[in-house]
């Protein structure tokens, strides 16, 4: 399985904002056996092995594009993102972002990019977000007048008001994430790297963050590379997706082409009044589990209506849920089935 080469053929070289060619990263990690003896052996004599986190990835992104970056945990998404930001030095290959080599972390480069991480925060925990924003404004050399104007514009877009003057520790997760976005965008970057920006947010807060990112892209023409565990983020925002698996790039193209391969089945979860044997579900999709009164099935989208009707007719159903399977599982399935 060779990774897809996917340099945009229609894009003239000069109008590319992110260009990645043959990018690889190899980590040396400690190899430690479990238990006390393993710990002692490891303490006395450290053993290491090489892990290929990213292998020979190439792609390019044009200004204003919103690109989704998909992959299971440990696939190499975050490592790639961090190489694009200049946080990690690549082991091999070339990266050019906004005309700079990221790993040099030139101040001009740092002023043009931003990184938002859903699970890490830069806001000062004990103080209102406004204090952190003032620190960021000073660090980026933004005048007080400009900073005030930008904060007011962004807080309007993000629907943030008195939250900016309340200590961060007293904000909800959703409010905190919006304040994090404000802090990350204060210097008006034109390349945004977003690593799980909606992680842990409830459905409404996710939708608001998503809407904000779409608006921001429309208003400023900023380029965004976004990773997310929520398929809804990607479908709402990214016409183009990159799919990475075990460090290799396997898909680079429109989302619909990938989506049809990724989500062929829906998850149906049933709660029955009385236990029923597994054989009763023959012909009603693929049975994942059947335990006491709870049954999990996978059903092809075009058969869904018929199957649900039959389930309701044949069994005493207490509860029925239809879901899209989590993205991790879909990608895992995809690779197990050898479709890529």
């Amino acid at each position, binding site marked *: 399985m060779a990774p897809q080469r996917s340099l945009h053929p229609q894009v003239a070289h000069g109008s590319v904002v992110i260009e990645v060619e043959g990018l690889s990263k190899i980590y040396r990690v400690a190899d430690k056996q479990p238990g006390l003896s393993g710990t002692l052996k490891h303490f006395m004599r450290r053993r290491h092995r090489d892990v290929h986190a990213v292998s020979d990835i190439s792609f390019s992104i044009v200004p204003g594009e919103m690109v989704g970056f998909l992959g299971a945990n440990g696939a190499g998404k975050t490592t790639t993102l*961090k190489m694009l930001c200049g946080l990690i030095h690549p082991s091999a290959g070339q990266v050019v972002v906004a005309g700079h080599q990221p790993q040099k*972390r030139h101040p001009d480069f740092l002023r043009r990019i931003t990184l938002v991480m859903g699970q890490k925060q830069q806001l000062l925990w004990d*103080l209102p977000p406004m*204090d952190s924003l003032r620190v960021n404004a*000073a660090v980026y*050399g933004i005048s007080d007048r400009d900073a005030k104007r930008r904060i007011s514009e962004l807080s309007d877009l993000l629907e943030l008001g008195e939250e900016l003057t309340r200590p961060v520790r007293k904000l909800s997760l959703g409010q905190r994430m919006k304040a994090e976005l404000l802090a990350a965008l204060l210097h008006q970057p034109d390349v945004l790297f977003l*690593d799980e920006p909606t992680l842990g947010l409830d459905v409404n807060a996710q939708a608001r963050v998503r809407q904000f990112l779409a608006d921001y892209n429309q208003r400023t023409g900023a380029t965004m590379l976004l990773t997310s565990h929520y398929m809804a983020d990607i479908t709402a925002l990214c016409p183009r997706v990159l799919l990475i698996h075990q460090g290799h790039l396997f898909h680079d193209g429109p989302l619909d082409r990938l989506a049809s391969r990724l989500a062929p089945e829906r998850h149906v979860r049933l709660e029955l009044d009385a236990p029923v044997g597994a054989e009763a579900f023959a012909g009603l999709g693929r049975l994942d589990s059947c335990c006491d009164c709870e049954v999990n099935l996978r059903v092809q989208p075009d058969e869904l209506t018929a199957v649900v009707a039959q389930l309701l007719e044949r069994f005493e159903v207490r509860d029925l849920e239809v879901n899209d399977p989590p993205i991790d599982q879909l990608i895992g399935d995809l690779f197990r089935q050898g479709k890529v």
Partner: protein
Amino acid sequence: MGRYFKSLRRFWGTALASQLEYQLNVVIELIAVGLSLLGSLFMLSLFFGPGRELGGWSWHEALIVQGFYTVLDGMASTWLRPNLSSIVTHVREGTLDFVLLKPIDSQFWLSLRTISPAGLPEIVLGLFLVIWGGNQAGASLTPGGLALVLVMLLAGGLILYSLWFLIAATSIWFVKTWNATEVLRAVLASGRYPVAAYPAPLRLLFTLVIPVAFLTTVPAEVVLGRASTPMLWLGSGLAVGFFVVARQFWLYALRHYTSASS
């Protein structure tokens, strides 16, 4: 340059505001500082009772050494400990990423991001000890001598900072280096007493390997007007040398930074 000054002002402003969020903690910290100062003076009076001499230093002369030690310890509590110990936290939790992505020198940010005013009374008391001890020992300082004292104090501070920063920077590889900083603190505690009070091998160690002598004894000698010129040059040279090494080591460490996983 203006951007760095403005950043520093905001850094310290937010640091003070953060600490004032917890009023009780501030009160407890101030009490702790007061008690620790009384404790160190009591220890000194046990070792150097008036009328006694140690390594050729009288009680009042030794007080100057203790004064410089107290000033440096106060500087460590005010700036070094809160800032440099947070490097380890940044590396472990992956928030160093945010620092490295700012268009400002990362060493500047990590060394001066916060300030803990609880160490300031210690600095004031240290200066008082230096002035009082110097007076009692009959030292008379010219403006030039005073400038030299400040230069040597700065050199001592720079050596201390560079050693501490070097150890903190190794957390890029080893992540936890608190033990190493504790060892450093223990060694620096030897700077409470004049170097001459130690046996010859330790004296050599404290002058050339871990230059504790330049942190306290040499500035005290300048106050007493008996510092030798070669020692002054050696102290200044070591300060610049240690700082350059710490700086280069940090730049080298950053190339090996792998960033904590998400």
